[in-house]
């Protein structure tokens, strides 16, 4: 039987291995377990602003000041934060690293109706903004975090890892 979703512990281990200093998160149903784990980790500075656009700008300021932040947001927040991602990431070539919860993915895989409208727009929006992304569906996909981190560094542009299942 396929086990869906990466584990919070293994994902957090990978995040720390990659040298992230700050976690800027708006918790959602997919990422709640990961956010809880990050919040209780003494090696990471965890903060939870009110809205995703704020988070993007805070992360941009942290990176400009020499830190390495990771954004954890839901796809709905990604959509809300479009102007901030444009203005604080794409335009000024700031390599935002985003871990995006893909609301609606699980329901779509189960063919539940009505389909969550957040589901079908996620990948097309990232494509439209020219943001490379990879899927994180289980612990087997954790190397995607390093891949997107390296691509952000080499391109100095935002990248994303999107997680279709709840972290376990």
């Amino acid at each position: 039987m396929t086990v869906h979703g990466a584990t919070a512990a293994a994902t957090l281990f990978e995040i720390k291995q990659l040298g992230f200093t700050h976690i800027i998160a708006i918790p959602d149903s997919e990422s709640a377990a990961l956010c809880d784990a990050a919040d209780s980790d003494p090696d990471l500075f965890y903060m939870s602003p009110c809205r995703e656009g704020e988070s993007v700008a805070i992360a941009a300021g942290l990176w400009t000041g020499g830190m390495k932040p990771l954004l954890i947001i839901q796809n709905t927040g990604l959509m809300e934060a479009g102007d901030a991602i444009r203005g604080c990431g794409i335009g000024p070539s700031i390599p935002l690293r985003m871990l995006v919860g893909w609301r609606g993915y699980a329901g779509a895989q189960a063919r539940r109706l009505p389909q969550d409208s957040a589901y079908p727009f996620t990948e097309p929006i990232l494509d439209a903004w020219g943001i490379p992304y990879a899927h994180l569906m289980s612990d087997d996909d954790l190397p995607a975090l390093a891949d997107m981190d390296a691509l952000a560094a080499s391109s100095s542009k935002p990248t994303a890892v999107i997680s279709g299942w709840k972290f376990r």
Partner: protein
Amino acid sequence: MMQRMDAFRAVAEHRTNEIVITTMTATLQWPLVSDHDLDFDFLAFGMGHASDFGLGLALARPERKTVVFKGDGGLLMSLGSLVTLGEYAPGNLIVFLLENRSYEMVGGQSLAPRVDFMRLAEGAGIREGGATRTGKLEHIETAHQLSEALPRILTEEGPHFVVLPVSNSEPLPPVSHSDHAGRVASLRSSLAVS
């Protein structure tokens, strides 16, 4: 009420090694009084997010103050940022809210007339708030009062959120939207960030 340029002149006179982030009309007039490696123009970076960017910078660079000039219209575009400041702003962040009651840069359209920025900031927990729980919330009415307060504001532990009622009768220089990546790279270089 003070002339915005008088407020800028006062801050420029007292400023030493602080990062200064300007946004919207402030980006146009601040360069008239300052030419500093740590000046950062936030124009076109993200509507309403200058103080969020400043919060990130202040967290990253605790060894120096980060000063943000933010407009009241911009604040209304990201009002939740007040709550975030109330919870997380470090002691080295200073936000000057330029209160001109209008979206000046795009034509001077009025803001909601009953909005009270001091009460909003108070309700967001900024006074005795921020990460240090030593947050300062002030309303400064005149350029003279601002000049007298600046030596304290620029040195004491904050965070500070200072509402400055301003008007402007001086001509605005033309808008420039160029080389945003270069501006970020320049600031990182000035901060010795590789």
